[in-house]
């Protein structure tokens, strides 16, 4: 770290006071613009990495199934983002952080090994798998649809048809070699902008599939499985051949109706029907669907389910929420006579039942005109059959069946943790059989974490809203943390309430029962840590600080997004930990092991000697390191670069030229100016204007009165340091240099004997906003200079700065707040810059310190802050 004297000598005060040439000024500008751009790219890369970590954590602890494809894609994306951050940091400061590359490679290679091992197919997957042996961990093998059916049967004991899945391995064998090559050729040679081209392409491909022979081994296995099924179900067995696609993320896509299923198929037509289902992968709508989503054709495997055909007396669908009005949590059941296909296709006017939960009861019933029903033909296939007139308006199912269906659907919903769309049938014996279940597509955006309905009594809610950053509920006394100095007094088990979810509160997480932040996102550092520590957390809960009284006992319901008065047992007790659906699966295991190298944060304290590249054990460590160091590198611009008056413009304010010089690095001026001066009106730099507002808000009353003896003290001090002697010609004149762009400002300022540097970035993107302030020096004796620095820090503390004192110097920082808040902070800094100069002379006792603090704070609250309130009132 260059000494303050070195820095001082550099601040535009070369002995000869040479001007920078035009080229050198241009070069300075380019350097600044490059650094600023790199800084923003690094922040973006870091944020992306943190978002991915949040996604991985969500998958790991959630109820939604996922496959190796997801794990591989997210881990790769996380590594790419972190690599970018490392690269950019090394561009910002060449040679300084090259050790990071090695740390990164070590972590990345371990993650890569874990992924590669799990991803590699063993080549020994079965071609045919019994349906009832499947569960959700095998969606890569049998497709989502069939894996789901197997899951609800295995885990919930819900009746599903008997049958088997023809796996993705079988599909790949069927497609392998010539068929896929031919399909690729056909696809390449068409241009799917014209719809009729798509139809033509589709027809050709489907035909090609129909005429391709099924490999012998596969055909044998299919027939063997069919034979076994027949032995169990009886000679007259007919089957349903259903599509079940792999390689599509069904939590985000709806493949409803894209593919083909064939019903009531006999043994002789098994292979034909199998090929028909596979061919449906190339229906026109399916081709367009994949094109629009950029999904590669060869990434979609079509598995086929062969299931005993249910000769339904009645059938239909259940939605566990209104598909139209997502907030309506009642169960919606549609039913008709015969096969449920009639309801699914929407071809028949069905009966509708609306069932309320807890207790389960039928609230509404509408009977449709059921003129026709779909039934199995005696031989094969299905046909429409007229319903006798007398039966048309009668209910297609009994009310007892309605309630049983609702109860079954609710069980499925609870198991998966999300609303369900369930296809069902009632067989000839009156038994319910589930034919299909999938997540119900609800209108509106999909949340990162499914918000549960708040169970707390409305009257007890003190604050509600925000985003669930970490699930759960907890109870404790409120502790509002505003300043760093309060950290040490944080009681164990308290609910930590803060304005911003800053990483430096992480040390408190181990002692907090819950976390509430007014700002921040579920993908931030602190949110990630809250999840790791299993501390329930809500972020983005505006106004929390005003509404939560310090010391008050509250219950935080992170899932329901609310904070309630007192201890509410109903929220705390009996919180079942959701069963991890993927438990025991190799996919979850791979994810867990990869995440050990991704999410844990070891580098907590930037001041600790362990905050170094060699201590990085995870990708999260590297992002934290890069972030801290990037700020350091970005905000030493003023120290590293300098210019003299002759290269810049002198500031003119109300017709008076000031002892302030301004260099425009980019877009800091509204208009380019010729000549020596730039007016204040022409300044576009947000941070500079904020500082200036503070600098000029209250006229300086001059240096404090010297007490007897002080002058001698000053002269003695000066004698020790010749550069400080006011009567000697000194390079240390009053100098103030601004380097600015619209969103950036660097101020190197010298007043008499003390020196300060301010660098700030203020834009509408809160997470990029920073203020760094450094301050040192003075004419008085050391102990008075120390008091003055302590005075400055105590005021900065009131305004949310994080400060560090070293003897008679201080560095302070504030970050991540919105534009208005940053402007306010800069205004306060500008005021302090002027009104604390030479104050060290007066700092004889601690009591005087306190008096001055009061005076300065009064000025700030009566002159500066009201301007912000006025501005807010006018918005």
């Amino acid at each position, binding site marked *: 770290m260059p000494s303050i004297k070195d820095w001082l000598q550099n601040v535009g005060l070369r002995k000869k006071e040479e001007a920078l*040439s035009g*080229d*050198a000024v*241009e*070069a*300075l500008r*380019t*350097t600044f*613009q*490059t*650094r600023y*751009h790199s800084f923003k*790219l690094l922040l*973006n890369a870091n944020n992306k990495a943190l978002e991915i970590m949040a996604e991985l954590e969500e998958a790991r602890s959630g109820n939604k199934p996922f496959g190796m*494809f997801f794990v*591989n*894609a997210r*881990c*790769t*994306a996380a*590594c*790419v983002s972190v*690599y*970018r951050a490392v*690269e950019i940091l090394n561009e*910002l*400061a*060449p040679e300084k952080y090259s050790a990071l590359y090695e740390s990164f490679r070590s972590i*990345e290679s371990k*993650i*890569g090994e874990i*992924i*590669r091992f799990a991803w590699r197919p063993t080549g020994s997957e079965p071609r045919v798998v019994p349906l009832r042996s499947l569960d959700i961990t095998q969606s890569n093998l049998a497709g989502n649809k069939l894996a789901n059916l197997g899951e609800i049967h295995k885990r919930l004991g819900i009746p599903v048809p008997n049958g088997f899945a023809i796996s993705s391995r079988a599909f790949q064998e069927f497609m392998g070699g010539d068929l896929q090559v031919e399909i690729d050729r056909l*696809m*390449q040679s068409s*241009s*799917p*902008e014209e719809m009729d081209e798509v139809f033509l392409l589709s027809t050709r491909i489907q035909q090609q599939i129909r005429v391709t022979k099924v490999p012998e081994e596969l055909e044998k296995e299919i027939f063997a499985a069919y034979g076994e099924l027949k032995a169990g179900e009886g000679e007259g067995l007919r089957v349903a051949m259903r599509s079940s696609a792999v390689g599509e993320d069904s939590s985000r896509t709806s493949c409803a109706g894209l593919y083909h299923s064939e019903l009531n198929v006999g043994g002789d037509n098994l292979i034909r029907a199998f090929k028909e289902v596979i061919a449906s992968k190339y229906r026109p709508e399916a081709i367009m669907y994949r*094109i*629009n*989503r*950029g*999904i*590669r054709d060869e*990434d979609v495997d079509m598995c086929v389910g062969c299931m005993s055909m249910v000769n339904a007396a009645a059938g239909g669908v259940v939605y566990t929420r209104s598909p139209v009005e997502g907030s309506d949590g009642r169960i919606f059941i549609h039913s008709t006579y015969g096969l449920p296909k009639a309801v699914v296709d929407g071809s028949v006017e069905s009966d509708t039942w609306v069932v309320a939960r807890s207790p389960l009861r039928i609230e509404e019933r509408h009977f449709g005109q059921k003129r026709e029903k779909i039934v199995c033909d005696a031989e094969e296939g299905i046909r429409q059959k007229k319903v006798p007139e007398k039966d048309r308006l009668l209910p297609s199912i009994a009310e007892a069946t309605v309630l049983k269906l609702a109860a079954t659907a609710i069980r499925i919903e609870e198991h998966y943790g999300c609303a369900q769309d369930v296809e069902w049938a009632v067989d000839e014996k009156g038994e319910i059989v589930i034919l299909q279940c999938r997540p119900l597509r609800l209108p509106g955006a999909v949340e990162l974490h499914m918000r549960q309905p708040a169970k707390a009594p409305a009257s007890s809610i003190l604050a509600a809203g925000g985003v669930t950053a970490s699930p759960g509920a907890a109870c404790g006394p409120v502790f509002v943390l505003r300043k760093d100095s309060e950290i040490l007094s944080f009681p164990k088990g308290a609910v930590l309430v803060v304005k911003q979810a800053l990483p430096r509160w992480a040390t408190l997480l181990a002692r907090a029962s819950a976390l509430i932040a007014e700002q921040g996102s579920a993908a931030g550092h602190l949110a990630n840590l809250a999840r790791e520590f299993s501390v329930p957390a809500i972020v983005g809960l505006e106004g929390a600080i005003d509404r939560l009284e310090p010391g008050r006992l509250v219950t935080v319901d992170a899932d329901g997004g609310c904070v309630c008065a007192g201890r509410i047992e109903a929220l705390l007790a009996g919180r079942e930990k959701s069963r991890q659906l993927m438990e025991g699966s190799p996919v979850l295991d791979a994810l867990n092991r990869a995440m050990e190298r991704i999410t844990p944060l070891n580098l907590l304290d930037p001041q600790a000697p362990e905050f170094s590249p060699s201590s990085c054990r995870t990708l999260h460590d590297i992002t934290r390191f890069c972030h801290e160091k990037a700020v350091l590198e970005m905000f030493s611009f003023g120290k*590293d*670069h300098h210019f003299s008056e002759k290269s810049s413009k002198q500031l003119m304010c109300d017709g008076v030229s000031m002892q302030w010089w301004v260099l425009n690095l980019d877009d800091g001026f509204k208009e380019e100016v010729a000549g020596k001066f730039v007016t204040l009106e022409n300044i576009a730099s947000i941070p500079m204007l904020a500082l200036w507002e503070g600098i000029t808000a209250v006229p300086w009353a001059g240096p404090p009165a010297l007490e007897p003896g002080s002058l001698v003290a000053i002269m003695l001090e000066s004698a020790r340091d010749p550069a400080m002697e006011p009567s000697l010609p000194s390079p240390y004149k009053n100098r103030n240099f601004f380097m600015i762009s619209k969103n950036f400002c660097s101020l190197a300022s010298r007043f008499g004997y003390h020196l300060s540097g301010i660098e700030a970035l203020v834009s509408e993107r809160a997470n990029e906003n920073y203020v760094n302030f450094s301050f040192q020096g003075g004419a008085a004796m050391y102990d008075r200079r120390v008091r003055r620095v302590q005075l400055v820090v105590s005021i900065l503390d009131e305004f949310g700065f994080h400060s560090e004192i070293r003897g008679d110097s201080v560095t302070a920082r504030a970050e991540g707040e919105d534009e208005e808040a940053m402007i306010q902070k800069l205004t306060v800094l500008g005021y302090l810059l002027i009104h604390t100069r030479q104050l060290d002379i007066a700092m004889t006792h601690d009591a005087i310190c306190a008096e001055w603090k009061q005076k300065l704070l009064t000025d700030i609250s009566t002159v500066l802050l009201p301007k912000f309130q006025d501005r807010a009132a006018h918005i």
Partner: protein
Amino acid sequence: MEPIKVLIVDDEVEFLETVVKRLRKRNLDATGVTSGEAALDQLAKSPVDVVVLDVKMRGISGLETLREIKRKHHPVEVIMLTGHASMEAAMQGMALGAFDYLMKPAQIDELVGKIEDARRTLTLAEKRHELGPRAVSNS
């Protein structure tokens, strides 16, 4: 400011044409080719600012194409775009100097944002190059 010149390289014709169309709607000067060889030919004839490059292609692969682009010192930034997440390919691409590595399906907003960032990086590098040894160092 001049519209950003982008070259999309992808052997899936339908996807290529969709992306080119969408980028043009965002006022980018976008063109497409279906192979690495065609991309290298194109770059030799009429330079662009940013290349969006598929990884898995028939003929010379995306990574080979990237290697050639860097070897020939074409002044472009390259964004890799792939439907297959392969850690090895991604790290190789980044080590070869790719600007970023995106996975399909890519949101068009995200892609445009990356292209703009890449162009800015290129512009600043050109500026520094022009200023040459007169450029102020960081230390």
